């Protein structure tokens, strides 16, 4: 089809030149159109590839987990069993572990990332200190997760052990839900913060100046103009970082204690979907392997659902 189109164009231009009606400009215009056409198709093709990739991934995940889907059905999602001996598997413990660590991490990170984005977006827009804070925050995003895990393992663990004693929790090892959540929170702060800052910088200057000219204080400008205007963007950043928290593997594996049970409290140990997959897939086979793959599917589904809910909220917010 492309060939046909090119031929037509080429022929057309040759004709026009032969008849003396065409000139160099129309020829180069046509050449641009061909390039534009090809470029357009390449873009479309790469976009379709990504869609195909995601769909293909979902299909293979479902196909490879058919054994456990057949055997456990919906029970897989509501039972808290991970029984190696009898080969009975359910995902509830890991789903709760994943959601608990991610949402607690989000809660912990929000005040920090929110403050950083407002500070850098409104109060400290330029200067050495602004750059310093900006670079430091972005540096956090570049640290490999195993380093966070390592740091958490050797420094946060013992500290959390003392914290647990302070709160009267007995026999805590210092590792578990809360320790993982704190590390996850530090890991996701740069995402929320840098997106928040950029969105806040996009708030139209005339709106802000208008508010100032009406006698608004800085605090009022932030709370009444900047934050409401930038809310949907900030929220999008939050959703993005939540996605990262849901899928984080290495740091969580090192800190959560890897107990295949529903966590009973903040200081309790647990396990997440990503972590249990990383731990067990290398020696798994049969139903266990199928169950692990189904867990992968569950994690993908959770991420999708969280993203859709996020998009919905953003849409609702920006319409108001």
């Amino acid at each position, binding site marked *: 089809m492309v060939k046909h189109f090119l031929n037509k164009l080429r022929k057309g231009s040759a004709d026009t030149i032969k008849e003396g009606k065409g000139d160099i400009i129309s020829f180069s215009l046509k050449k641009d159109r061909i390039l534009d056409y090809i470029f357009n198709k390449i873009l479309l093709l790469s976009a379709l590839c990504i869609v195909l990739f995601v769909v293909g991934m979902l299909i293979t995940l479902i196909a490879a987990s058919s054994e456990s889907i057949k055997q456990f059905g919906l029970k897989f999602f509501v039972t808290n069993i991970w029984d*190696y*001996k009898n080969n009975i598997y359910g995902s509830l413990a890991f789903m709760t572990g994943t959601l608990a660590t991610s949402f607690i991490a989000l809660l912990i990170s929000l005040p920090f990332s929110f403050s950083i984005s407002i500070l850098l977006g409104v109060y400290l827009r330029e200067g050495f200190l602004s750059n310093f804070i900006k670079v430091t925050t972005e540096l956090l995003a570049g640290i490999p997760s195993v380093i966070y895990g390592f740091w958490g393992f050797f420094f946060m663990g013992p500290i959390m052990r003392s914290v647990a004693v302070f709160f009267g929790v007995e026999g805590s*090892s210092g590792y578990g839900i809360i320790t993982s959540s704190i590390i996850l929170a530090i890991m996701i702060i740069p995402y929320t913060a840098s997106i928040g800052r950029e969105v806040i910088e996009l708030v139209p200057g005339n709106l802000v100046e208008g508010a100032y000219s009406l006698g608004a204080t800085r605090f009022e400008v932030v709370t009444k103009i900047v934050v409401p205007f930038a809310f949907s963007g900030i929220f999008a950043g939050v959703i993005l970082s939540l996605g990262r928290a849901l899928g984080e593997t290495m740091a969580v594996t*090192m800190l959560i*204690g*890897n*107990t295949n049970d529903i966590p009973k409290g903040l200081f309790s140990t647990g396990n997440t979907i990503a972590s249990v997959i*990383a731990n067990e897939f*290398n*020696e798994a086979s049969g139903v266990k392997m199928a169950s692990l793959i189904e867990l992968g599917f569950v994690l993908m589904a959770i991420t999708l659902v969280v993203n859709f809910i996020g998009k919905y909220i953003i849409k609702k917010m920006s319409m108001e």
Partner: protein
Amino acid sequence: MKKFLVLCSVVISVLVVLLNGCKSTKSEPVEILGAGATFPAPLYNKMFDEYYNLTKNKVNYQAIGSGGGIKQYKEKTVDFGGTDAYLSDKEIADILAVGDSVLHVPTCIGAVVVAFNLPGITKIKLSPEAVSGIFLGTITKWDDALIVADNKDVTLPAMDIKLVTRSDSSGTTFVFTDYLAQVSKEWSEKFGADKSINWPAKGVLSGKGNPGVAGLITQMPGSLGYIELSYATQNGISYAALKNKSGNFIEPTLGSASKAAAGSIPADTRISLVDSDVSDAYSIASFTWLIFNKELNYGGRTEHQAKEIVKMLQWVITDGQQYNEALDYAKIPEATVVTAKEILKQVTYNGKTLSK
């Protein structure tokens, strides 16, 4: 200039002839592919590196885990598999059912230690009853009567025992639970020996890999867990002397682990070494094996390749053993080497025996 070119071409042609001559007199190096257990991987890497220097035969071993090694062996994508647990009778029957026959040769002995972290205490003694009680969850305090009874000379604190286990499924867990199942009827009935276990004790913490468990133990006072001997010695972690079947308390060392194989070994070497009868043997030891097909004419292997595979295996159980102890793996005893040599004699190519 012309002369120079002529000279050059003469030199090159002489070189080519010489090189070809070399090629025809010396046997062509082969590539051998293996995959499996991660526990002996450092040893295999060292051995195969030395073997390459000796013979120019390249042995590529991928440490993908015992389960993966067995799988790859069955799918015939590798020349040999590595495994920490020998194939069960059922697995062997399954392989026979498809017309193949599998052979095992042990390459080294690994010891699993009961490691602990008690401030100020570096040596304790544990009886099998104490170890199984701790992992069954019936013993929860360090000053439990069953532990104190064997450690009169040590003041044990009234601390909770914080159990540390492996989070990933592993041969280490298999060997350790194999021991528990051997010494405790309750354990063998409820849990048996497996690579992953639903630990019955409360508040069990799990770390990924030997380093993960070793890390958790060093981090937490009052903790107790199981790791490979080498990880304990390299990280300065204390470990317990265990009371063996003969009633002696034995410190885990390469020597005492090797002793576990000093008893009678079956002709196919498929035996668990835990809870050995030998009076000075350490109780939690295990062979790790290489497994391969008895008939090597499959997947387009030539007789030359088959011969080289057998030669390599022979080297591993004989000359290759000199690298074991430097890397913290116990050697297989002389008697076992003899048995393993007999096994290698069974290897055939088109039904024809390969080694004398």
